[in-house]
């Protein structure tokens, strides 16, 4: 089997010492495959940028190692790593032209002038900035600077490209464009992208796989579908999309497992969610679009309708369960599917076993 593009083993990074020590990264291990668009997702301060800087060589780990295609990178300075970075602020050299910026990496590698010139043209075409080679970065818009930063980082054909929240400075429309653009560049160049963001939507739309981070640790790694459909931790379920949390106790374990909810009702669980010891207290997660509202008296959890929010493509119903637990249900406004519910109406919430995730915390 081919060695992974990037492998981190037991990475820790502590800033400061003694009482003021900040554990930015705490024993993190992960594997990033070749040609993968991998995203590190988390709130600010979760350690995602620190992890990126450890891979890039801008910081040295307090413990653990980073491997590139099986080779340890420990101790190698950034200029000896075949890894390039797109910085959040782009960090284009203001005294050089766009062309000189893009050629910088090739020049440092000692490539001949003709090759550099050809490569600059090629890169400008790739990021759709033909004819801009002689401009200075300050004469470009934010989106154009972003493209130059990408071209510069890709020009020397790194094995891995690191992107540190590169889209955060762009406005919404441009950001959407660049998301598609980045995905296209990644597919066309076949270079492994490691992308850092705090924007869950960005992470879901672009990534092949993503790692959700919090407080210096990786909580879950998986494809966007896995992360969204099968969150393992409360933080992951909460950070990505909307989620209803239900406190429950396992009543019957194994196949045909049942969870007795704090609100009084009971829910049938399927294999994975039911794989817990009988009597164990658990937290269940249910996505708002996976629950169904039925007429009062039907089998399910009795609830009362609170606010009804119409969102165009779908409608959100804010319900309250018997014990006061809030529960949100979202239904698509497809033809004839719209429920006509007034605030205060009594309804029943039905949740299929497949829609229920048991969380580890």
């Amino acid at each position, binding site marked *: 089997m081919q060695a992974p593009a990037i492998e981190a083993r037991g990475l820790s990074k502590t800033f400061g010492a003694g009482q003021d020590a900040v554990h930015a990264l705490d024993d993190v291990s992960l594997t990033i495959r070749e040609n993968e668009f991998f995203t590190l997702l988390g709130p600010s301060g979760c350690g995602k940028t620190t992890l990126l800087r450890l891979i*890039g*060589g*801008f910081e040295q780990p307090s413990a653990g190692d980073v491997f590139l295609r099986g080779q340890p990178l420990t101790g190698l*300075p*950034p*200029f000896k790593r075949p*890894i*390039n*970075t797109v*910085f959040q*602020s782009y*960090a*284009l*050299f*203001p*005294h050089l032209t766009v062309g000189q910026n893009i050629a*910088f*990496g090739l020049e*440092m*590698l000692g490539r001949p002038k003709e090759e550099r010139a050809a490569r600059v043209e090629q890169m400008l075409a790739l990021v759709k900035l033909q004819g801009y080679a002689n401009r*200075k970065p*300050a*004469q470009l818009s934010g989106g154009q600077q972003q493209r130059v930063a990408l071209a*510069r*980082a890709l020009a*020397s054909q790194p094995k891995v490209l690191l992107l540190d929240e590169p889209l955060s400075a762009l406005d919404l429309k441009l950001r959407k464009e660049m998301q598609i653009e980045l995905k296209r560049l990644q597919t066309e160049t076949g270079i492994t992208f490691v992308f850092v963001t705090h924007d869950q939507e960005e992470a879901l739309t672009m990534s092949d796989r993503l790692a959700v981070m919090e407080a210096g640790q990786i909580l879950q790694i998986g494809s966007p579908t896995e992360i969204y459909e099968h969150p393992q931790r409360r933080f992951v379920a909460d950070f990505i999309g909307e989620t209803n949390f239900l406190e429950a106790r396992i009543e019957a374990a194994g196949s045909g497992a049942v969870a007795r909810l704090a609100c009084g009702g009971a829910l049938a669980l399927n294999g994975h969610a039911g794989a817990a010891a009988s009597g164990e207290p658990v937290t269940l997660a249910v996505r708002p679009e996976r629950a169904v509202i039925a007429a009062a008296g039907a089998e399910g959890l009795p609830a009362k309708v609170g606010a009804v929010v119409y969102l165009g493509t779908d409608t959100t119903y804010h319900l309250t369960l018997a014990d006061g637990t809030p529960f949100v249900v979202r239904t698509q406004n497809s033809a004839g599917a719209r429920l006509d519910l007034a605030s205060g109406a009594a309804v029943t919430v039905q949740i299929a076993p497949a829609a229920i995730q048991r969380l580890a915390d």
Partner: protein
Amino acid sequence: MTAASRKRFLQIAPAVAIIAFFMLAPLGLMAYVSLLQKGVNGGVVWDQHTTEAYVNFIFERDLDDSLVLNIDYLRIFARSFGLSLLTAVLALAIGFPTALYMAMQPEGRRNLLIFLVTIPFWTNLLVRNYAWILLLRNGGLVENLLRWLGVSDQPLGVMYTPIAVSIGLTYSYLPFMVLPIYASLEKMDSRLIEAAFDLGADRRRALTRVILPLAMPGIAAGCILVFVPALGAYVTPELLGGGKSMMIGNLIQGQFGAARNWPFGAALAFALLAIVLLAMMVYLLRFRRAPAVP
């Protein structure tokens, strides 16, 4: 002129008038004095106009009234020029690494370092120069240190040479080099250096290809701020040069003092001013022509 702009003009007029008066009046007086006949016991004869002072700069009037080339004064100018250049180069060699180190420090420590760099300014210039005499003289601190280290047991012999003058000037004007370079390095985005490393530049090339070009306006400003006052320096060449390696400043002082030739002193001062203005123009042409893009 609208009422508002007239009001604005009146508000800044006093400041402009004061600056204009205190800059133009002495300059005009000097220009006038340089074109007068010198008085027998110093001073000038106010109603006898002559360009003799400017002629004297390059020529000597022989007994038979013919002009003979005299390069003594040009030599002093050339020496001043060379010493000032050496001073600027030494200050740059010491000042740039200092400024770079300062700019790399965390915020709090930077302010402390700026404070330390400016501390010598608070000591009297004479006192600082006498301190250098104690350090550099034969049998002084530096000589004893070298002897103790076993480097040399000869008398130092630096005192009253151009080298001593250059050391003194470098020391005096070093903050003028450090501060502008620091200012240009400090506002530089540290990510640019990281980007250079990231793209394969080692430390040397990150320095030459990214840091130095971006610090260039600060370096140029620092060089001028050191070169110009060094060119007109008086105290340091007087004390550390012992009058043996005379510089322009001492020459001018001598004309107004012992030589009692005010017109010639004024003419020398104008020659110095011309050189300084030339240096400024070179700087402006070289570093201000680039379009200031926001």
